[in-house]
């Protein structure tokens, strides 16, 4: 049997055992959504890191650096600095005022029906675009690394659903993620993320160590080799900025287009994290605000170290393997077909394994990195499924429809049952959607270009103003949640970045739309608030501000830790 398949099965086996164990601890809503608020600070830090470092950042950034040199590293920098926004402004107030979802915090001051519906809308938009990228990535990864699995699964998934042919690999990932979330809720999701974080860190450390070993632990030699790699189009070497962002070529309004694109990307990266529903949700799993703070510290340590290592993975692949040899099928040391940047890390692992441990080593290290990437995807999609089903069931079904529209009481049992059903529906829908759009979507652009931008244009202004601006009201919140989401999707749709290959002369010039849509989201929040004020639509939100202000800052009356209470 093939080593990759064995390692895949081990990963799946471990996660299923955890899910079985977690299922017995998942009976109440607080257990399903928030793991009973029993996750320790350091555990949550690992889980945040596991939730955050997606396949896009592991395979994607390593690939960007391997193909474009220094400019790919810009993603790494932004994704760590983002946590300062989370730490300073979001983590503790979230834990102090929220219950299970982001919308809980907004509904504190705002009229629950419109604001919860709007937040459910933006949450689903963020989670769906993030999820599509992960599932499509998972699908192509399995096809490339263990083609036998995909072909063996094919007869079982040989169905057309509503005109879309199911993809066996995507379906496998989707089914596993549904099992974790439906059976084990947040407890299983958290532990899958923790294990994945440990696997991913060990994989990155191992590869970094071997890259440095190759260069005799001399940074000088390593960077000499990196500088020896030249980009054909620009003539720049790989230590220099300007390969991915081609400065000084095109201008918009007299400003360099590449510079705008890069700044725009940076805005989405450093602001978006603080508005990602699946990350925010993690802060409800810890006992108190202090533990929320500690978990960000742990996460920053792990995430930062990982992203520094991406330069060794990416530059390592560029120097040792080379762009021309990074592709799905290598026959006799040469590529068959076009290079695929997502395979930079796996091909680097194969090379280093071969150099230090011979043929078996090459096979084993490639299999190990593939298994790590697979675990990575599983952990991230589980977190996303939980966030999206939270928006559907907790925000929309339980709070909007049952509690506020029908004025009913919803029992614990029903809430957990509905949560499980929606998680299943989210899973099925994403399997179908990923198979449908799989061929045309630009996966990396979906994550950084859509999910992060919606999070920072719609969710972030709503959260920040709810916590810190006294006049903010329901109108402002709905305006930015709905407006920020719609504007972002529209700009991306008319821009160059939505599909592959990129459009030649798009109506909107930037791949990264954040520089327009993020300020617009904040502006909509402010304008909406003043219009709401004018029509005197929402007088309660200002009164309630005093309450959320005190609660957010002090933790008074925060959702209790069930064991301590």
């Amino acid at each position, binding site marked *: 049997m093939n080593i990759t398949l064995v390692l895949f099965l081990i990963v799946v086996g471990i996660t299923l055992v955890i899910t079985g164990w977690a299922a017995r601890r998942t009976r109440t809503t607080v257990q399903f959504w928030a793991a009973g608020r029993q996750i320790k600070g350091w555990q949550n830090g690992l889980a945040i890191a596991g939730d955050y470092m997606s396949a896009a950042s592991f395979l994607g950034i390593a690939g960007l650096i391997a193909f474009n040199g220094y*400019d790919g590293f*810009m993603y790494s*920098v932004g994704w*760590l*600095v983002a*946590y*300062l*926004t989370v*730490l*300073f*402004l979001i983590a503790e107030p979230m834990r102090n*005022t929220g*219950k299970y979802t982001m919308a809980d915090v907004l*509904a*504190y001051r705002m*009229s*629950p029906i419109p604001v919860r519906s709007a937040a459910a809308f933006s949450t689903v938009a963020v989670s769906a675009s993030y999820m599509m990228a992960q599932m499509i990535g998972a699908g192509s990864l399995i096809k490339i690394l263990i083609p036998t699995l995909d072909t063996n699964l094919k007869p079982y998934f040989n169905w057309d659903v509503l005109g879309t042919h199911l993809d066996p690999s995507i379906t496998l990932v989707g089914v596993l993620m549904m099992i974790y979330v439906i059976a084990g809720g947040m407890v299983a999701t958290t532990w899958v993320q923790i294990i994945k974080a440990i696997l991913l860190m060990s994989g990155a450390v191992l590869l970094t160590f071997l890259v440095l070993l190759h260069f005799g632990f001399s940074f*000088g030699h390593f*960077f000499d080799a*990196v*500088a020896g790699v030249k980009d054909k189009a620009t003539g720049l*070497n790989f*230590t*220099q*900025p*300007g390969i991915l*962002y081609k*400065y000084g070529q095109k201008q918009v309004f007299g400003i*360099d287009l590449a*510079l705008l694109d*890069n*700044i725009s990307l*940076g805005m989405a990266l*450093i602001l978006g994290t603080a508005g990602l529903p699946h990350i925010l949700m993690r802060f409800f799993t810890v006992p108190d605000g202090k533990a929320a*703070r*500690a978990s960000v*510290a742990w996460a*920053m*340590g792990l995430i*930062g170290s990982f*992203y520094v290592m991406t*330069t060794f993975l990416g530059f390592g692949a560029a120097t040792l393997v080379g762009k021309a040899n990074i592709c799905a099928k290598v026959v006799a040391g040469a590529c068959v077909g076009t290079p695929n940047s997502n395979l930079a890390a796996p091909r680097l692992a194969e090379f280093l394994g071969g150099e230090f441990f011979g043929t078996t080593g090459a096979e084993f290290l490639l299999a190990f990195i593939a298994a790590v990437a697979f675990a990575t995807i599983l952990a991230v999609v589980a977190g996303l499924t939980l966030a999206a089903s939270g928006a559907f069931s907790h925000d929309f079904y339980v*709070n909007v429809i049952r*509690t506020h529209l029908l004025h009913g009481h919803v029992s614990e049992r029903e809430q957990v049952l509905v949560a499980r059903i929606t998680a299943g529906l989210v899973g099925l829908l994403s399997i179908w959607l990923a198979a449908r759009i799989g061929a045309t979507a630009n996966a990396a652009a979906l994550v950084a270009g859509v999910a992060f931008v919606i999070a920072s244009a719609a969710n972030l202004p709503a959260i920040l103003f709810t916590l810190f601006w006294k006049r903010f009201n329901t109108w402002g919140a709905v305006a930015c949640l709905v407006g920020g989401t719609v504007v972002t999707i529209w700009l991306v749709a008319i821009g160059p970045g939505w599909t592959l290959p990129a459009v030649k002369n798009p109506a909107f010039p930037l791949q990264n739309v954040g520089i327009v849509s993020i300020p617009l989201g904040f502006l909509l929040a402010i304008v909406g608030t003043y219009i709401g004020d004018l029509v005197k*639509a*929402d*007088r*309660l939100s200002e009164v*309630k501000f*005093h*309450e959320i*202000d*005190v*609660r957010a*800052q*002090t*933790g*008074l*009356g925060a959702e*209790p830790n069930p064991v301590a209470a």
Partner: protein
Amino acid sequence: MDVGKAPPAPPAPHQEVDHLEPAPGEGGHWEGLEQTDEFRQLVRARLRFVLPATIFFLVYYFLLPLGNGLAPGLMKTRVFGEINIAYLFALSEFVMAWVLAYLYIRKANTVFDALAAKVRARAAGRKAA
């Protein structure tokens, strides 16, 4: 409102309300707490750290892409062998983030937590020590 007479029981977790008109007297307890010296001290202390730190990290972060785009010659300057300013600047962003996070957490664990505890003690009707 006299905060000293606030009910001693800790506040219950939040209950959502349907209506948009405030009930008479609603929010008074919280507004009272908001006006106390303890709470103001807490907010001021937080603001004094978070505001400059946020401005600093935003400026420092955007200097990197701005530098790469506007001063490519400077950023490509080699410092140690082939290691250039652009790469060192990017690495320094990591150090900057870690240092600011460390400073915030140290401040929060010592100063902010103690001030928040005073507000909570006040809310519970006890005089803070």
